[in-house]
């Protein structure tokens, strides 16, 4: 049976990862930065599933890791949004550049 080669998944994930990385580096809004991080984490998930397919799907290591990554990403997003809302209440902005109360 023909199926999509593993390498194609890897190309997809590296493209997704680069988009996420680019977003993190150039975006000023904290929520956009967070979205960039989520893209990077999704690239990781694609990688794991692709490699799980390449090695041995039956050991479930790859899929299990993906479930954990999704769970932890959800926890991280919850904490992140709480902190960003708290910042917005204080400073009326979620721009990373405008939040600079601490200076050396």
């Amino acid at each position, binding site marked *: 049976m023909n199926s999509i080669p593993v390498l194609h998944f890897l190309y997809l994930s590296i493209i997704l990862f680069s988009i996420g990385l680019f977003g993190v580096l150039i975006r000023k809004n*904290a929520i956009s930065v967070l979205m960039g991080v989520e893209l990077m984490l999704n690239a990781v998930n694609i990688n794991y599933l692709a490699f799980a397919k390449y*090695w041995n799907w039956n050991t479930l290591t790859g899929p299990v890791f993906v479930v954990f990554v999704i769970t932890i990403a959800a926890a991280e997003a919850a904490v*992140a949004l709480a902190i960003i809302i708290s910042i917005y209440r204080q400073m009326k902005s979620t721009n990373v550049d405008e939040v600079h109360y601490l200076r050396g």
Partner: protein
Amino acid sequence: MINYSAFLPELFLVMAAILILVVELFLTPTSRRTILSWIAFLGTLAALLSLSCLSGSCPAGCNLGNGTEVAFNGFLKTDGLSLFFKMVILLATLLTLLMTFRYFKTHNTPYPAEFLAILLFSASGATALTSAQEIITLYIALETLTISSYLLASFMKKDKGSNEAGMKYLLLGAFSSALLLFGFSYLYGLTGTTVIAEIAKSLAMQASSPLAVFALILIVGGLAFKISLAPFHMWTPDVYEGAPTPVTAFLSVASKTAGFAAFIRLFWVGLNVPALQPVWVGLFGVLAALSIILGNLEAIPQKNIKRLMGYSSIAQAGYISTGFLAIGPMGLTAVLFYLFVYLFANMGVFLAIVIVSNKTGSEQIEDYAGMWKRSPLIGMVLLVCLLSLAGVPPFAGFSGKWYLFGAAISKGYVWLALVGMSFSVVSLYYYLQVVRQALIVDPKDSSPISISPLEKLVLVACVVITVTLGFWPKPVMDLAQAAASSLF
């Protein structure tokens, strides 16, 4: 059948944290802070005592096993090495709890239970990280530690600094976790396993490939964020300054210790293969040298003592990485000994900062003027602990650095040891700025500072340990050697 003793300390911490959250519901706001602090304290103390039972040579004779406990198919293994790391982390947690009690007297929070519970969850993540033998376990423990730390850093909701510290820590922390995971995914792709020892076996049979080097760089970058090695250190000063002081103290010791534990498991066991070892050793050499240079130079102009300690901790991470590069029992012993010394010196300074800022409401170095006259003990702590961090001879920091640089030289990293030594001299300048204010300059306000008996006891203990280990490092060195022997 699950072997519970492999994660007994974590179990105590998590149980205490849950107990705090439940008990809080039945208490009145006036009495709860004391009671909840005691629960947290006893839980951490129980975890600390359980380490002695787990070590297989308990003085009280209540031994559990023979020093190595394995659970979950070997994914979690508590051996002598992880017991030493756990001891450092739990001692740091105990001292943080003491600071928390004082800190919340002036910085009132309506949520003391949540703070204590999150602190204990964070500590349980840090201790679990030291036993992780597998990448998924390692990642989950790491995230338990860091996600809780984001919350702790931004805990003072009404305080702009604390909020900003939390946001910066979170964005950079999440970013570094993503880098680390991407690296891990390629590691899994190359080897088909997530068990660290199996990864080593599989990698040893492969030639060096660009993909492996790429994965390695991502992993080094991701983890270097966590222990604030330059050039991944930009979050450190802001977070250290903005976070509540007990949290800063916790991050500076517990989080760093856990990070080094992960480094040793991952790099010394998993990636110590001929094809990859020169690459990461080279990377770490550069990172360690950069941390020592940048950390020490940027600390010089600082006016805020917490920010100064932030830069100082970057430099300290650089020194410890110097020992980390000397792969072998000697390097490991040096790293463990230095972490122990660093724990008491740093915690002593932070306890003094909490007590002083509780009275004066200031964290500026110039407000430490005449501290010697206002409280001789705090003057003494600042003198001994800061000079120990600088590595001045009679104190423990000197013997610690002696072992670190000695291990590095024995493995041929003479240049790195020279960088470390010469920048230790630079560091003396900014540490002495604080000591000069405290001991020589006349006080602007000479009202005495009151210290509770327990705090006095801890401050004296920090001074005594820091001085004693300088003259007589043998007891802790023996302990560190025994811990190191479980890896070699």
